[in-house]
């Protein structure tokens, strides 16, 4: 009985995913302007970034305020590699992923000893220092005026200059990221991450090497941030240090929390929602932020598990009634 319920819920889940994917594939047919496609581009990039943040925050329970710093490093690394050495896009992307992964790994070393709010403040300071360094390394980054004219992705001679092909490229990466994080979650590594989040000492005596797992979690989330950064640089074609500030950290945090931390669908929905919503509500921009802040507050108080948790609860109730 239990097994059939499980199998059926799995089937529904798979079906929902296929439907979503089909919608995502057909979306460019509906989106008329490059402006609308541009929003879709951003949503896809932030899905990757939020998924990586969720690995750290939602799975492993580590609150970093410096994640945007890694995103920035990814963006600048890729842009500089491609623009100043003429390397192909894929090399820039790879370079960004490797460098951010390495830096994530470095951040993890002190993070093993520094806990709770101290870790949050350390990462906040690191993120700001990264931004200051980018701003003052004029010769490489053009300082606060930013880097412009970053070329669009070009893979084996095929240029993703047009908005629609670029959309499919980003969709491809986002789907890869979703699959990766989903497989991670149901693997022994994902379980180890979550056990650290829920009861660190319990995890240790269960044989989880908490140090190694925290490092891995930091590195994975950093690699995803690096990839997202690279894609951002080559999609927007302009980056500046001001963009990668603490305001963006807040937005990222809200994406994961409103969507539902510790889940795969949560950051996807959260990122899409928080990119599309302000654009849709552009005419009330100032009011939007007022409502947005209160919504964050309401979410953590009233829906601690985010939209994903709310959805699960509603489904359960529906099943009980049926």
């Amino acid at each position, binding site marked *: 009985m*239990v097994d059939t319920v*499980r199998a059926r819920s799995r089937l529904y889940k798979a079906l929902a995913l296929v439907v979503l994917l089909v919608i995502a594939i057909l979306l460019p047919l509906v989106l008329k302007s490059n402006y609308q496609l541009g929003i879709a581009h951003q949503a896809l990039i932030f899905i990757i970034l939020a998924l990586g943040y969720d690995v750290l925050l939602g799975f492993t329970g580590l609150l970093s305020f410096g994640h945007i710093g890694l995103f920035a490093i990814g963006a600048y690394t890729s842009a500089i590699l491609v623009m100043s050495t003429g390397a192909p896009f894929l090399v820039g992307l790879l370079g960004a992923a490797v460098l951010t992964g390495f830096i994530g790994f470095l951040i993890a070393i002190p993070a093993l000893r520094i806990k709770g709010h101290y870790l949050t403040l350390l990462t906040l300071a690191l993120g700001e220092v990264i931004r200051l360094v980018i701003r003052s390394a004029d010769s490489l980054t053009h300082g606060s005026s930013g880097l412009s004219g970053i070329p669009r992705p070009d893979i084996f001679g095929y240029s993703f200059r047009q908005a629609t092909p670029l959309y499919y490229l980003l969709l491809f990466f986002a789907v890869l990221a979703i699959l*990766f994080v989903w*497989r*991670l979650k149901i*693997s*022994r*590594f994902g*379980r*180890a991450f*979550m*056990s650290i*989040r*829920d*009861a660190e*000492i*319990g*995890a*240790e*005596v*269960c*044989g*989880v*090497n*908490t140090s190694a797992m925290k490092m*891995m979690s930091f590195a994975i989330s950093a690699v995803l941030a690096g990839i997202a950064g690279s894609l951002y640089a080559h999609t927007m074609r302009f980056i500046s240090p001001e963009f990668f500030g603490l305001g963006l950290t807040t937005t990222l945090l809200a994406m994961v929390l409103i969507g539902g931390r*510790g889940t795969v669908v949560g950051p996807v929905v959260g990122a899409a929602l928080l990119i599309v919503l302000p654009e849709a509500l552009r005419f009330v921009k100032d009011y939007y932020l007022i409502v947005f802040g209160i919504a964050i507050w309401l979410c953590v108080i009233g829906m601690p598990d985010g939209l994903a948790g709310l959805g699960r609860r509603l489904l359960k109730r529906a099943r009980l009634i049926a």
Partner: protein
Amino acid sequence: MSALLEVNNVSKVFGGLTAVDGVSFTLEEGQILGLVGPNGSGKSTMLNILSGVYASDGGTVVHRGRTLTGLPPNAIASAGLARTFQNLQIFQGMSVGQNVLVGRTCRMRSTLFGSILGSPFARREERESRERARSLLERVGIARYMDAEPSSLSYGQRRLLEVARALASEPSVLMLDEPCAGLSQGEAEELAVFIRTLKASGIAVIVIEHNMRFVMGLVDRIVALNFGRKIAEGDPRSIRENEDVIAAYLGRKRHAHH
């Protein structure tokens, strides 16, 4: 023949207070050992040292000829020492089945990429671990909650979940910290029966427990602590009649122990 676990002269100091003071005892294969003593006598500290949660300030712990002293908890778990907690350390955000699977971590070998890409080895390992987790949950009688959240379990069932999780690492020594706290009389009796089946399957057990009725009826041997020191060791009958133990519990006839 050397013992399964040898604890030699172990000490632990917190600030100025000596919580465990030169305690030694041995545990044989398939034995059930009770660790008793009044509040603050150092039992929990002892268990924390054995499981690696605390580093000891002196002495050695030797398991099957291998010195465990100074190893981190996860290495001690791999060596075959598993434990439960008095104030439960359940992974609340994971299903009951996943909780038990975490207990198997130290027996799993698949790599990150093997797991993500679903290599044949990783898939087989995952499947086998799942089956083992299910059979362990069946043994403690909560298999039907495999996909439920731990919060839907009763307090007693959560204790059993921790036992199943500890057993998932295939330990040779299982350490239970106050397994009866919060259990009804009936549940405690069921637990005693279950612990005896573990003994029958060759697992040695160390139990810390305040419920003396439970301890006396279950264990083969008792080590009694007071003020961090071992004050008596022997079978349950001799412990119950031991003057020092009675004094430690009831405050009668105090000798110069401290």
